């Protein structure tokens, strides 16, 4: 098969195959290397992608004004970005540099969709929490300050440090610095993924196709494009894997890099990854562990021992010589990362990691238990917390995309088993693809949706690889016309999976901007909430403890420099303060014993049910089960409570000072 033949990297001369055209040509005319870069249709497709982005911006503007046709224009823009690039990458005629350029264009255009969604400020949960971390750093000059919005951010301060440096040095705002940082990280991720998959399949065409499929993962549009530590860590993790692959000799056409260099590079990247994001580090450990296991299983003990055993070179009496004797590969990469992650967990981040990931996994497992054995916690797919159900065509597209993948994965894995049985990296990627069905099951529960969403960005690298191998096998021995037809069919199917990914990954309410919605994350970030946060920053004591709904809590916890309180005190869930029409014993207990300084009321909450299923906290009473909105009288009751001062009002949002309650 053409894709199984050795080819050069995107940055070196590839061997001709029908799938991967040869592009760079060497010349001995001058002492250096003369290269010709042929970018083919990439510039034209970049223009088309930019036009698609413009279309999405227009669609979002229309959505903000609730004009008809905004949704169809949005989808048209997305498909204008995705389909032409997919078609070109499925085809045979593009060369390696063109394919590389196209995957970067695709990645950046999809990042642009997030930028035009929130062009002037942060609107997502993790973004506002990250903003607070950077603000803490700029204020104090030190990392590890408590982050009241996401505790984990303070003990994984890698992205905070980099953004702080960018902001401090360049003079740009935190928002612009974040856009630059995550944009650069996205470009690097796409390039690194391309190189990884190209070397795994030994084909630039396979790498391009794999990334077309990778771009279908439900997280790529918003979650992985947001200013969050995972968006940055993915790029570092991809760079890490690239070094490991180089150490394992997967690009044999080049002169082997020195072991010392690779070990030092791995050490720097290990530290960078471990201090930036827990899950990305753990996922990389798991993958490298899997790869090591596959080497053992497929090739026996000897090759693995060779990877672990020092080489014979160098003087063992000197440190550098000792390092030079190491063999860089998945086993060493896994061991270094695991050791660093363990040390970081034990000495720095254990508590916060357990709090954050432990609760996510515990809730998901509990929800799965209820799903199997009956009980609460299950959810109806394609249905928002308000009861709004996606149209039939959307539900069909969402399910059809899963169906396509369910068909492609086993066929692709079987193909890899037939043709790549000795390629341990290919087998490992296939094993990752096989995790896909298991990542879908948690999506059937409220608590498990987040795990399913987060897993997709890792699992789709494997899915992309197996899909590419399968497609190249199908088109390898067919004529030109049939190959074009197959490319067209594959483009259509990939478009279906891409649309399905967007449907599954983002609720219809938050897919595009629009008027204010209750409990709907980015749609609940309003000018009034931002104004209240700026008032708080200017007039209220920093880190005052407040009771507030989720979205306004993000604004007040970030721009307002306050500390939103959630959870429960003395067995009483704190949101109970808002739910009863009377200011009774429980409300007073929460305010006094949880040392609440201010209560923030958004009177719009009484207008409708929350889209996400809860107003204040996922654990609040009747979360996801509420049938009627919170009563307006329950939100007005603070006006008549002795000891509570009404200190701020901008119409929808009122702030009450509760500090005198304790004195009564």
């Amino acid at each position, binding site marked *: 098969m053409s894709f199984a033949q050795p080819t050069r990297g995107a940055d070196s001369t590839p061997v001709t195959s029908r799938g991967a055209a040869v592009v760079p040509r060497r010349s001995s005319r001058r002492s250096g290397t003369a290269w010709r870069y042929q970018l083919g249709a990439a510039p034209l497709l970049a223009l088309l992608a930019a036009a698609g982005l413009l279309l999405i911006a227009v669609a979002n503007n229309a959505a903000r004004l609730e004009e008809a046709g905004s949704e169809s224009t949005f989808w048209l823009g997305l498909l204008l970005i995705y389909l032409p690039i997919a078609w070109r990458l499925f085809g045979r005629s593009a060369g390696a540099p063109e394919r590389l350029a196209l995957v970067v264009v695709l990645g950046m255009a999809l990042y642009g969709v997030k930028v035009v969604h929130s062009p002037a400020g942060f609107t997502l949960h993790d973004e506002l929490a990250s903003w607070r971390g950077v603000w803490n750093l700029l204020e104090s000059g030190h990392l590890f300050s408590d982050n009241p919005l996401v505790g984990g951010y303070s003990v994984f*301060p890698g992205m905070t440090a980099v953004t702080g440096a960018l902001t401090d*040095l360049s003079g740009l705002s935190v928002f612009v610095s974040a856009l630059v940082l995550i944009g650069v990280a996205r470009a690097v991720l796409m*390039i690194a993924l391309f190189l990884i998959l190209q070397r795994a399949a030994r084909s630039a065409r396979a790498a391009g196709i794999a990334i077309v499929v990778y771009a279908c993962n439900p997280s790529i549009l918003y979650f992985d494009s947001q200013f969050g530590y995972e968006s940055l860590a993915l790029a570092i993790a991809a760079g890490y894997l690239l070094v490991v692959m180089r150490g394992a000799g997967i690009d044999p056409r*080049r002169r082997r890099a020195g072991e010392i260099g690779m070990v030092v*590079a791995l050490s720097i990247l290990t530290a960078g990854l471990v201090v930036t994001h827990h899950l990305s580090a753990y996922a990389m450990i798991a993958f490298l562990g899997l790869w090591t296991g596959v080497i053992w299983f497929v090739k026996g003990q000897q090759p693995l021992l060779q990877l672990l055993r020092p080489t014979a070179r160098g003087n063992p009496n000197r440190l550098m010589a000792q390092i030079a004797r190491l063999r860089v590969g998945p086993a060493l990469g896994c061991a270094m990362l695991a050791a660093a992650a363990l040390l970081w967990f034990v000495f720095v981040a254990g508590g916060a990691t357990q709090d954050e990931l432990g609760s996510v996994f515990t809730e998901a497992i509990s929800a799965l238990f209820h799903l199997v054995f009956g009980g609460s916690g299950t959810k109806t797919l394609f249905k928002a917390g308000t009861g709004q159900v996606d149209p039939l065509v959307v539900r069909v597209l969402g399910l059809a995309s899963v169906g396509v993948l369910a068909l492609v994965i086993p066929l692709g894995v079987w193909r890899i088993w037939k043709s790549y049985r000795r390629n341990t990296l290919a087998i490992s990627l296939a094993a990752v693809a096989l995790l896909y069905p298991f990542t879908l099951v948690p999506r059937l529960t409220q608590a498990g949706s987040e795990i399913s969403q987060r897993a997709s960005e890792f699992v789709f690298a494997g899915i992309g690889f197996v899909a590419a191998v399968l497609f190249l096998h199908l088109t390898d021995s067919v004529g030109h016309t049939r190959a074009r037809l197959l490319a067209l069919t594959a483009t259509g199917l990939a478009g279906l999976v891409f649309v399905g990914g967007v449907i599954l990954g983002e609720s219809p309410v938050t897919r595009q901007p629009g008027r204010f919605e209750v409990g709907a994350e980015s749609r609940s970030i309003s000018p009034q909430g931002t104004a209240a946060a700026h008032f708080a920053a200017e007039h209220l004591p920093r880190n005052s403890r407040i009771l507030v709904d989720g979205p306004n809590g993000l604004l007040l916890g970030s721009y307002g420099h306050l500390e939103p309180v959630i959870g429960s005190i003395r067995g009483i869930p704190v949101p109970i303060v808002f739910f009863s029409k009377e200011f009774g014993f429980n409300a007073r207990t929460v305010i006094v014993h949880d040392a609440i300084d201010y209560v923030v009321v958004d009177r719009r909450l009484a207008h409708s049910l929350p889209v996400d299923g809860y107003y204040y906290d996922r654990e609040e009473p009747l979360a996801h089960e509420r049938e009627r909105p919170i009563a307006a009288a329950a939100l007005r009751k603070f006006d008549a409570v002795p000891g509570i001062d009404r200190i701020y009002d*901008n119409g929808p949002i009122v702030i009450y000072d509760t500090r005198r309650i304790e004195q009564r």
Partner: protein
Amino acid sequence: MRRDLALVSALAFLALIAALLSAPVWLRAPLLVPLVLLLPGYAVAANLFAPKTIGITERGVYAVVLSIAITAVGGLVIQVVLGLEREVWAIFLAGITIYACLRILVDKRSSPLSVPSSISWKIPVAALAFVLAGAVATLAVISAGDGLRDAQAKIRFTDFWLIPDGGAGAETDNLSVGLRSHEGEPRRYSLELTRDGEVLSQEDLLLRAGEKWEKSFAVSVDPAGVPVVAVLSREGAPYRRLDVVPPP
């Protein structure tokens, strides 16, 4: 002679100067963004991976991810002993970059990096198309920003507050009352502060869009805890009401 590393060290030096002299943002940003995201990693990668062991694309990936990791880990270590101020960041990042470059530049044995010695004539055309695509994408972002501003301009409201002077946490018998207009056009307000029916203050105001008005006034401490009530009217109609018991 590695001309690329000479250029990198020169850029790092210029960036350091720009940071230390607090150059204006338009000059600092293009010099200092690469100092965080590109130059240290490029220089370190040049030390770790000799020419011809990795290609340019892979070198580019390492330049960025190593820069990010160096900044993250370096910041983590430095902040133990020093505050992470602009000068500290600049000296650290430029120092690493220049030191790593010099290590190779002074090494007579180092071989030059393979770089394209001739570029196809198609590249400028392609570059032009990419620049055009970038311009269209920028237009999309600008259009989205305009759309957001237009939509938000339709949401009109006024912030109104009444708090103990010097911040709500201050122990004082002064109160501060203020308002900020987000009404998009000039608006007339009248403000009345009373306690127990007695008028403490009365103001007629005209605020332009985005304008803020704030005033402090002294109140006597009332042991009975009778609140001060502030009533704001807009265009003659009652609009907002706040009440605060001055701290004892």
